[in-house]
C-alpha cells in the first residue's frame, strides 16, 4: 500500500484509540453543563473550551467520535449486506432477475438519495437505528455494481466451471467460489463507504434529523455551533476538522487499498 494509505491507517488507528479510551480517561461527562463558564476558551479544566451550555468540548468530541464512528461503520455494513445480496443474485442468476435488480439499482442511482432520506425520516422519525438503516438503504448501489461485475467476471472462470462440473451448485458455488473473489473490491468499497456514511450522518445530524442531543455526534455539535460562529468560531472548527480528517483518512485508505489490491489500477 502507498504511503498515504499507511498514514491514513495510522490516523484512523489513533482516532479509534481516542474513541475507545478517551471517554474512559477524560472523565468530565459530555452532558454536564456549567452555565457560568459557557463559551469559554481553552483552560486547564477545559482544554478545548466549552460550548454555549458550558459543556466540555473535549469530552463531547471524544464521546461524539464513538457515535460518529459506530454509525458510520454500521451504516456501511448495512450497505454492504444489501449491495452484496443484490449484486451477487443479479450476476449469478442472470435473466430477468438480473435485469430487474440492476435496473432497480440504476433507478436508485438516478434519483437524489438525500431527498429519499428525508422522506424516510419524515415517516419513521429520528433515531440512531433509523439513521443507520436509512444511510445503508440508500448507499448500497455502488456496492451492488461492484459485486455484480465481479460475479459476472468470475462466473465463467475455469475454476468455477470446474467446481460446477464437480457438482457444486447454487448458493454454495456463489458463496464458496465466486464471492471470495470479490472480497478485495468489497474491502475498497467498504472503506470508501464508511467515509460516505460518516459524511451523510454528520449532514443529517447537523440538520437536526440524525443523532439527537444530548447524545453528542460530530454532526450535531455543529448544529448549534453555527449560531455562535460570530462569537465562538472554535465551536464550529473542532468537530468540522474532526469529520474532515476522519473522512479524508478513510478516502485515502480506500484509494491506497485499491492500488494495492487491484493491479490493473496501478499506472
Amino acid at each position: 500500500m502507498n504511503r498515504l494509505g499507511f498514514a491514513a491507517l495510522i490516523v484512523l488507528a489513533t482516532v479509534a484509540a481516542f474513541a475507545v479510551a478517551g471517554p474512559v480517561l477524560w472523565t468530565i461527562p459530555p452532558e454536564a453543563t456549567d452555565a457560568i463558564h459557557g463559551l469559554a476558551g481553552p483552560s486547564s479544566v477545559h482544554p478545548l473550551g466549552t460550548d454555549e451550555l458550558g459543556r466540555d468540548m473535549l469530552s463531547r468530541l471524544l464521546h461524539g467520535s464513538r457515535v460518529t464512528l459506530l454509525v458510520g461503520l454500521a451504516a456501511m455494513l448495512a450497505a454492504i449486506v444489501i449491495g452484496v445480496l443484490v449484486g451477487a443474485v443479479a450476476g449469478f442468476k442472470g435473466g430477468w432477475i438480473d435485469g430487474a435488480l440492476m435496473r432497480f439499482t440504476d433507478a436508485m442511482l438516478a434519483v437524489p438519495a438525500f431527498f429519499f432520506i428525508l422522506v424516510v425520516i419524515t415517516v419513521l422519525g429520528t433515531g440512531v437505528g433509523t439513521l443507520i438503516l436509512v444511510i445503508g438503504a440508500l448507499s448500497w448501489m455502488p456496492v451492488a455494481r461492484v459485486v455484480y461485475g465481479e460475479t459476472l467476471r468470475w462466473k465463467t472462470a475455469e475454476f468455477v466451471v470446474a467446481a460446477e462440473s464437480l457438482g457444486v451448485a447454487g448458493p454454495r458455488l456463489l458463496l464458496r467460489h465466486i464471492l471470495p473473489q470479490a472480497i478485495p473490491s468489497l474491502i475498497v468499497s467498504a472503506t470508501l463507504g464508511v467515509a460516505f456514511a460518516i459524511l451523510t450522518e454528520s449532514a443529517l445530524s447537523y440538520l437536526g434529523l440524525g443523532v439527537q442531543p444530548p447524545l453528542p455526534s460530530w454532526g450535531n455539535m455543529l448544529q448549534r455551533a453555527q449560531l455562535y460562529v460570530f462569537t465562538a468560531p472554535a465551536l464550529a472548527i473542532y468537530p468540522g476538522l474532526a469529520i474532515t480528517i476522519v473522512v479524508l483518512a478513510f478516502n485515502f485508505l480506500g484509494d491506497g487499498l485499491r492500488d494495492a489490491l487491484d493491479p490493473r489500477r496501478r499506472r
Partner: protein
Amino acid sequence: MPCTTSANGGWLRSDLRFAPADRSGLAAPAVARFLLQRVALGALVIVFASALTFFFVNLAPGGPASIMRFDVSPEQREALIRLMGLDRPVPQRYMEWLAGALHGDLGTSLLTNEPVTGRIADRLPNTLTLAGSALLISIVLGIPIGVVQAVRRGKPIDHLLSLVSAIGLSVPVFWLGIVLILVFAVSLHVLPSAGVTSVSSDTFGDRLAHLVLPAIALATTILPTVARFTRSSMIEVLHEDYVRTATSKGLRPRTVMMRHALRNALIPVVSAIGALVPRLIGGTVVTEAVFGWPGMGRLALEAAQGRDYPLVTGLTVVVAAIAVVATLLVDLAYTRIDPRLRLA
C-alpha cells in the same frame, strides 16, 4: 450498442471509446432511437421514484395513517380520514395521485394548506439557480484542473491538486459553508452570508454576491470527482496511438491536447457528470440550510420536520424529474461530443 447501457450507466460508457468499427454503420435514426430510449427510461425512473415514495409514506408505520391514533373525537377522526382519502386502498390512491400529478396537482400541503405544486414552484427557480451555478463551477474548474494534472502527471502540481481534490471530497458541505461564512462574511466582510438578496438592494449584482458562497460550497460535492475523472481519462487518452501520431507529425502540443486528446477524453467525463447530478441536487438540502437559501432543499427540510407527507412526496418526485431531465441534457451533449453517435 450503447443504447443498452442503463439510465445512469455513464461509467460503463467509457468503453465506447474503444468500441469496434462496426458502429460506423450508425445513422441519424440511431441517435433518435438512443435519445428516445433515454426519454422513456427517464419517465420510468420518475414513475419509480414517485411509486417508491408514495407507497413508503403510506404503508410504513408512522405515515399519514397514524392520524388514526391522534387524540381526537371519533367524528373528527372519521372526517380527517375521509378528507385525506385514507379509507381507500393505497394502490388506488396512488393511481389517483399519479393522475393528478400528470395534471400538475401534487396534493395539498398539510402545514400550510396550500397546493404542493405552488409551494414547490415558488422555490424551484432558486434551487435551479444554485445547482446550475454549482454545476457550471464544477465543469469550468474541474475539467481544466484534471487536464493540468494529466499533462503534469507526477509533478508537484499534480500531487498538490490531487490533495486538494481529496480534501474537497472529504469536507462536509455544511462545514465548508460555515467556514466560508466565517472567512468571507464575518472576517473579511466581502460577501453576504445568507439569503438570496439584501432587503434594501435587489439588484443583479446583489443577487450574484449572495450566490457566490453557496454555489462554491455546493460545487465541492462534485468538483473533485469531475477533476479526478478528467485526469484519469486524459491520462488514458494521452497513451493512445493517435495522440502519438498527432505529436509526431509535428502538430503543436496545444493542438494535440485540445483537438485530439481532450475531445476524446471528455466523452467519459460527460457521462460521469451526468451521473453526478443526483448527488449535486441532494447536496442542495444541506447547502440551502447553511446559507438560508429559500429553495426546494430547505422546503424538504421543513416538510420532514413538520411531517408534511404530501409536500415531501411531491418534492421527491420533482427532484427526481429534475435529475432525469439533467441527465437527458447530458445525453444530448453526449451525442454532440461523440461524432460516432452523430454521423453515419
